[in-house]
């Protein structure tokens, strides 16, 4: 296990009153990519400075919910490649993406609907997406739960989040 040198702890992140999405992302600029089927515990992820999009997005969701922001975890599935997870922050008008941790613009702007988020993620990966789901993850139970799923091949008017907004 690689010991963290300068990465913050979960407590640091939760206690920072001025934590913004950009500041959060800057902590992970030197992190490496390593695939894990399951989501790593946050302390492990921060200590090892290695992980994947699930680890990053779930941690961001956990931290910013703690700070009172409205966030959504989004999972985008593609053709013949591994699915990708991002954390959408409503008041930022965009999402945190582990692939963008080293870019200057760390927040990727997009529309708020699942379809729009999926289109933007697919555009960045130069791939065609097939379906996108909003999900939750609980560190305590380690359980992931799908809330709603949107399928690309279906008509946008029938998207689950659109219908939910129309019929709250």
């Amino acid at each position: 296990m690689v010991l963290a040198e300068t990465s913050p702890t979960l407590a640091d992140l939760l206690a920072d009153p001025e934590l913004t999405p950009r500041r959060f992302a800057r902590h992970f600029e030197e992190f490496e990519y390593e695939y894990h089927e399951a989501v790593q515990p946050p302390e492990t992820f921060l200590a090892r400075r290695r992980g994947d999009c699930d680890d990053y997005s779930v941690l961001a969701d956990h931290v910013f919910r703690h700070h009172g922001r409205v966030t959504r975890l989004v999972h985008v599935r593609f053709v013949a490649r591994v699915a990708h997870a991002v954390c959408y922050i409503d008041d930022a008008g965009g999402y945190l993406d582990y692939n963008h941790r080293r870019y200057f613009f760390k927040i990727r702007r997009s529309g708020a609907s699942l379809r729009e988020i999926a289109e933007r993620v697919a555009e960045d990966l130069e791939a065609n997406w097939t379906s996108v789901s909003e999900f939750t993850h609980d560190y305590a139970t380690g359980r992931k739960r799908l809330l709603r799923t949107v399928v690309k091949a279906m008509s946008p008017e029938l998207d689950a989040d659109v219908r939910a907004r129309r019929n709250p």
Partner: protein
Amino acid sequence: MSAPAAIPEPPADQPGADRTLHWVIGLFALVLVIAGFTAVQAVRNLQRTRVASDWVNHSHAVVNECGALLAELYAAEAALRSLALTGHALDRAAGHQALENIEERGAILLALTEAEADQRARSARIDRLLRQRSEFLHAALATGGDSAQLNRQLAEDLGFLATREIKDELEKLKGLVLARLAERDRESFRQNQTTRATVWTGLGLNLALLGGVAWMIQGELARRRRKAAAMRRANETLANAVATQTAQLRAANERLEDENNEHRWANLALVHQVKYNMAIINAIREPVLVVTKAMNVTRANPATLDRLDRIEEEVVNQPLAALVRLAAQTEGQDPLERTLHQGRDLRLQPALIVGRRGAPQPCVLTLFPLRDGDNVVGGVVILNADESGSATDPDHAPSPPRP
């Protein structure tokens, strides 16, 4: 000067010139319409192709989920059996993870098959079967460390039937999806064929139309070139005719100039001759008058003016009779005029000069006709002094001497 060469008429405009332009514009408009239609068809086909590609990806996603679901189910079954053998917590955790994955993938499969009724029904059945199986697996995993109980549960379990049934349902679902995919592929192929035919036909039509336009333009250009050549020839002929006429005019002008010079010189000679003649007449001591056939004075030499005691303006253009008359009065036509008309001379006739003042003065008049060829055009009157005293004015005859 010879007659000028005939200038050929330029070729008249053919009535089809404007029609050609209308045809060209019409054909270009048609080309645009066909190109637009072809472009629209191509764009629509691109859109259909994108949609078709999405459905292909979607179908493969369903097939992948079916495979992944089955794999997770097998993983969960394997974890349970491994737990029964080893009682290890890792096997329990693996089992729970597999069951969680089954739940997630089941939800995704339901969403992916929502659009097609038969697929939706099939995946709903699969979901029911999976839930049933998952309930058993959850319960089995929750037995804790009692492997004996777990083994009993497994011995009583007909899970392999459930698993086989789920597998069969998944295979059927995959079959439905692949059949639908084949249908869509056929439709897509036909649409591509149609679009290809439309595009190629449009392209061929446009090429043919453009060829027609090029042919028409080429014909029009050839016609204009012929017309330009005819115009050039007409211009050349016109230029030649103008040059010929100019040369003729120049030659005529030169001849006229020569004639004018000759006339001028002749006139000068005449004037000189007249002056010379006048000088001769003026040098004559006797009064000499030149009269017209109508007996009007046209010339008078200085001796005449002296004799008549008049200035030139009082003599020239005056009737001769106002200046001098024959002493013998006659009735009827003036004998001088009659003589002149007859073309005879009248010599040394007594006459009387009508003086300005005082009594008429006697003189002797001689009249010679002036001839131009055979025609009498005037006369010359010479007045000599009356030395014989034969010319007397009866009105002013001197009184006879007194005895």
